[in-house]
């Protein structure tokens, strides 16, 4: 399907304008917050057309909402995708992405280096739907090929992995996915579309926790699934929800009816309708504001993070630093290929005193906030093994780069010297 994918406008123009024309009735220029549940039909016929998906329009905000729709188009545009579906959180986005692809008994392959919460969601909670995950070390693509089975419906990786410094070889992984006739799903939360555009490397779906850099200010939970529109859902019989008559929508065949809009239509009309994990309009608004400054913020996030990483690498009390922006990183070459504008602002390090000294550093910071989030304007610090990656076994923690001595930083937008001074005093204290 040859939709015109050419980019007419630059990234910065799209981060401010995409999806948001002036409100047609009042002329309001900033996107109104449609704090509203339901929408009046013209008549019974109009209502029927809307419920049959025969016309575009709003029914009920569990499915679509005008403010949320602006954010959806904004993110779809920034990723250069066909469409996107926003939802309540990054975890909701992951559930929504797999919901369209998986039947009970199906499996998927995921990197063993993911945000700890994702490892738990996939490995423990998805099991209750009889969805099976195989975690593999994706650094060697052969491991992924070896793990493929006929019931495997997707490959899932993080472009830049949480907690730190690991970058997935998206091009190699997308070739494997293509050969297997399954989509590559990339969590692009840590890189954002400013630093990395997974669709350009062959990914088929992108998921985001918009909670992080896209909102950028720690105000709003949110998630998003972006569809590239490039995957042929009818190339095999693996995806009946999208390419066969869908019993949850009176036998509608979504791919035949909506073509490259099938995934996003399905994710709203069935995914959000039945899972109910809708994004709140106020959260969409806050995230829209965040998107407006994304490029500027990411540049500074990356610049500050690289300088802090260099400082730590030269610090006598620091045992190691894992940050793909540093030439010493084994992922430095991949960083230059996939995110040449910068390797993000979340990375890890360890101090020579191990676990106890690490805890001490975390507790001694004055400017760095000790909390479980990333991608805030504020700098953040955390000990993953005792928090975000706590539910994992020690083996899983080590595999995920969240072993006992690991400290995670999310470098914010404060004055660089203040951040370095704060870490310096905290390390000396430890």
């Amino acid at each position, binding site marked *: *399907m*040859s939709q*015109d994918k*050419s980019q*007419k*406008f630059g990234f910065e*123009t*799209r981060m401010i*304008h*995409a*999806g948001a*024309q*002036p409100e*047609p009735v009042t*002329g309001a*220029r900033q996107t109104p917050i449609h704090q509203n549940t339901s929408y009046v039909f013209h008549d019974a016929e*109009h209502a029927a*057309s809307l419920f*049959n*998906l*025969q*016309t*575009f*329009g*709003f029914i009920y905000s569990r499915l*679509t909402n*005008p403010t*949320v*729709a*602006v954010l*959806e*188009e904004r993110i*779809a*545009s920034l990723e*250069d*995708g*066909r*469409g*996107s*579906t*926003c939802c309540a959180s990054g975890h909701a986005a992951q559930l929504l992405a797999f919901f369209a692809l998986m039947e009970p008994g199906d499996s998927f392959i995921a990197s063993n280096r993911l945000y700890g919460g994702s490892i738990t969601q996939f490995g423990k909670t998805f099991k209750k739907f009889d969805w099976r995950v195989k975690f593999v070390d994706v650094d060697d693509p052969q491991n992924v090929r070896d793990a493929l089975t006929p019931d495997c419906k997707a490959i899932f990786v993080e472009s830049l992995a949480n907690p730190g410094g690991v970058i997935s070889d998206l091009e190699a992984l997308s070739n494997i996915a293509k050969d297997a006739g399954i989509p590559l799903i990339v969590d692009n939360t840590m890189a954002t579309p400013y630093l990395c555009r997974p669709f350009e490397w062959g990914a088929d779906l992108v998921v985001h926790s918009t909670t992080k850099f896209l909102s950028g200010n720690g105000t709003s939970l949110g998630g998003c699934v972006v569809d590239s529109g490039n995957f042929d859902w009818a190339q095999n019989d693996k995806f009946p929800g999208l390419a066969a008559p869908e019993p949850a929508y*009176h*036998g*509608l065949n979504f791919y*035949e*009816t909506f*073509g490259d*809009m099938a995934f*996003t*239509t399905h994710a*709203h009309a069935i995914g959000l309708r039945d899972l109910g994990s809708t994004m709140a309009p106020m959260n969409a608004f806050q995230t829209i504001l965040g998107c407006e400054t994304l490029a500027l913020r990411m540049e500074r996030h990356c610049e500050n993070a690289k300088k802090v990483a260099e400082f730590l690498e030269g610090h006598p009390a620091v045992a190691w630093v894992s940050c793909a922006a540093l030439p010493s990183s084994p992922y430095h070459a991949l960083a230059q290929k996939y995110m040449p504008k910068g390797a993000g602002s979340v990375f890890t390090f360890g101090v020579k005193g191990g676990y106890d000294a690490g805890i001490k550093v975390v507790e001694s910071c004055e400017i760095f906030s000790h909390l479980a989030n990333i991608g805030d304007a504020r700098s953040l610090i955390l000990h993953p093994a005792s928090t975000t990656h706590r539910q994992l076994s020690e083996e899983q923690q080590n595999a995920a780069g969240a072993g006992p001595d690991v400290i995670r930083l999310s470098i914010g937008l404060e004055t660089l010297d203040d951040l370095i001074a704060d870490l310096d005093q905290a390390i000396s204290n430890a």
Partner: protein
Amino acid sequence: MSEKIDHDSYSDAYLRTLLNSVKSVAVVGASPNWNRPSYFVMKYLQDKGYRILPVNPRATGEEILGEKVYASLAEIPGDFDMVDIFRNSEVAGTVTDEAVELAGSKNIKAIWMQLTVRNDDAAARAEAAGLQVVMDRCPKIEFGRLNSELSWGGFNSKVISAKRRKVRIG
């Protein structure tokens, strides 16, 4: 026609002008089933004020959306502006030739081939006869995209504008 149309990438202006100039659309391959793609498109275009004229030899004698179904383009009484083709690319060629044949007597101005339907030879013949051609696109999607309605579903319309939009409604 002097301007050469690039069928790999239509400009928004080309599609907008075409959709704004057309008032009646003969839909070849029109299905009477509510959950078929052609029905979706006819319903939407009708809601937006277009007259739709369904063509399907296997559904003659029936009505679709209140409109009589014709066996062929030639059987439609009176003029119509555009032919929208829901048939495979090869058959689309035959339908296009029929439309070119009838263009003078029925005032046909444009041929539209649906998503996945593309026949460049037939398009060249139609353009030589002075008709406008769009291939591998859906008029519902393009109308919705150019009028900000596609955006309501979270789609990337690629339209950026600081102007207050005017929606063309029925």
